[in-house]
């Protein structure tokens, strides 16, 4: 039977992985999500609580997929607190996705926080296509580092490097992920830089990559209601993040006057994006 991806599918939480004290990965069986492209997202229904856009995380289990949630406000905390055996609803996967260039040799993946999620799915692609990659993961401090082991595992068939940076130096390199990028992008030639994470980080990544004429794909976040291109709440200028994004390339980003600058809240009002560190 044909499944309408816009209809909510109820799934059972089969397994939960505690990534950090405030980040968990919930695993569920869903064929469509298991085939999602890296960078696509789901609209996740927490019944009678919220619906949130969340990137599709990968699961080792066949026909399964996952979401990785950081405990924060109302909706995310309710989701974080779900137990194995409880149910959630999902629709999607939505949006475009990261793309691989023909004859690509070397990729750089750089992200932070739950922005790492789409990059993890991308990492498995890199592995599959035999593309060597460097994966830079930023975190505030040691307790917030996650996905390092998985990244190494996902990339195991290729020549790869997983570099962790912490703002406070409690683990890996001290400094921000973009500091590290600034160093390695000078030394090595990458075919493309992929990024997802805080928008100001992505803005710096874009600036650095542009400086060294490296192609970029960045996955953006905006407030989403419908996830399917009708309500307009996720707009960045004339683009809809849910439909024409979430992934934009250097050409798109160059034209987006709001990228790294303007975020619209739930009401649609614009505010300036500020560094929350």
């Amino acid at each position: 039977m044909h499944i309408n991806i816009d209809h909510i599918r109820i799934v059972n939480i089969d397994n939960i992985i505690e990534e950090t004290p405030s980040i968990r990965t919930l695993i569920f069986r869903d064929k469509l999500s298991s085939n999602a492209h890296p960078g696509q997202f789901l609209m996740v229904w927490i019944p009678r609580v919220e619906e949130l856009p969340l990137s599709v995380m990968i699961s080792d289990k066949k026909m399964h997929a996952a979401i990785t949630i950081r405990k924060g406000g109302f909706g995310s905390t309710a989701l974080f607190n779900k137990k194995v055996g409880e149910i959630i609803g999902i629709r999607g996967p939505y949006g475009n996705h990261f793309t691989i260039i023909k004859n690509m040799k070397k990729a750089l993946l750089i992200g932070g926080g739950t922005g790492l999620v789409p990059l993890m799915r991308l990492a498995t692609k890199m592995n599959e296509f035999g593309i060597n990659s460097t994966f830079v993961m930023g975190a505030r401090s040691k307790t917030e580092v996650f996905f390092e082991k998985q990244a190494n595992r996902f990339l195991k068939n290729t020549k790869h490097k997983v570099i962790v940076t912490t703002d406070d130096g409690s683990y890996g390199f001290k400094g921000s992920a973009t500091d590290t990028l600034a160093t390695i992008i000078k030394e090595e030639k990458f075919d493309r830089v992929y990024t997802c994470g805080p928008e100001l980080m992505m803005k710096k990544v874009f600036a650095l990559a542009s400086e060294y004429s490296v192609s970029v794909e960045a996955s953006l976040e905006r407030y989403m209601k419908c996830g399917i291109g009708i309500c307009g709440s996720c707009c960045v200028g004339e683009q809809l993040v849910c439909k024409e994004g979430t992934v934009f390339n250097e050409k798109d980003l160059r034209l987006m006057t709001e990228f790294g600058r303007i975020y619209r809240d739930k009401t649609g009002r614009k505010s300036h994006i500020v560094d929350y560190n």
Partner: protein
Amino acid sequence: MKQNSKYNNDILRVNISSLSLRNPTILASGFLGISQELFNKLYRYGVGAVVSKSISTQPMEGYKNPTVVSLGNGSYLNAVGLSNPGAESFSKEVISNKQVPLIISLVGSTDSDFLPMVKKFDHLNICGYEINLSCPHVTQMGMEVGDDPEMVNRIIKTVKSYSRKPLFVKVGVGNSDIIAVAQIAKDAGADGITAINTIRAMTIDIETSMPILSNRIGGLSGKPIKSIGIRCVYEISKKLKIPVIGCGGVFTWEDAVEFMLAGASAIQLGSVIGYEGIIAFSRITSGIKKYLERKGLKNAMELIGLAHKY
């Protein structure tokens, strides 16, 4: 206003009250309706006019998600809860509008809500107002206001007393007789009627037994409401002889033509955007054009209300 030459077809031009649109397709309120950059893009893509998201005096957060549920078969249920940036912020958004024929949709609870809003927009490059009297899921606003004849009268008179721009009143199918509400609007001085808004509806997930929308009840849009919209346009335009803008489930040029035959001077597109994106405007426009040519008609306005004869 400057026209994009690609979309200049005199055969498609329609006049509605004092508005003159290059073609009869209009963006329905609530769709993509908060960004001036998006309005500009829509205009590049061939839209005849744009109606903004319904704007209130103060910013509104609206309801929690889920706010939009796809019911399949070209239909949606939504209870966005009239979330909008508020008149102050939105007037700044559209201050840069140059060429887009922009209709500001306004929503409020009493007549006193409207004057301050109109004052913020009236000097800008906008071409009219649409008063939303028919949002079916926000208490004290929209439809509940539309059910109060005296308030409808006062709101329209207030806006008309300040502004000389054309004013359209958007009505819906709900608890009152739609013809009666339209009649009150006409008598109060409205220049036209937009029909119809979404219809109060609900969906329950059978696995959890829970209503899906956070507000439980929302408004049904899209294909299912088309024949209801056609009926309302037909009755309003036939009985009241007032310009009507048709809305509800327009997905194809055939739907657009059907609305015009029923009496619509123009048609609004909403839910179709979820299926085809904004390409829908030019696709439907060119369908109408071919139909007019095949029928040997000189202008789209010749279609308006043709079905009234039979």
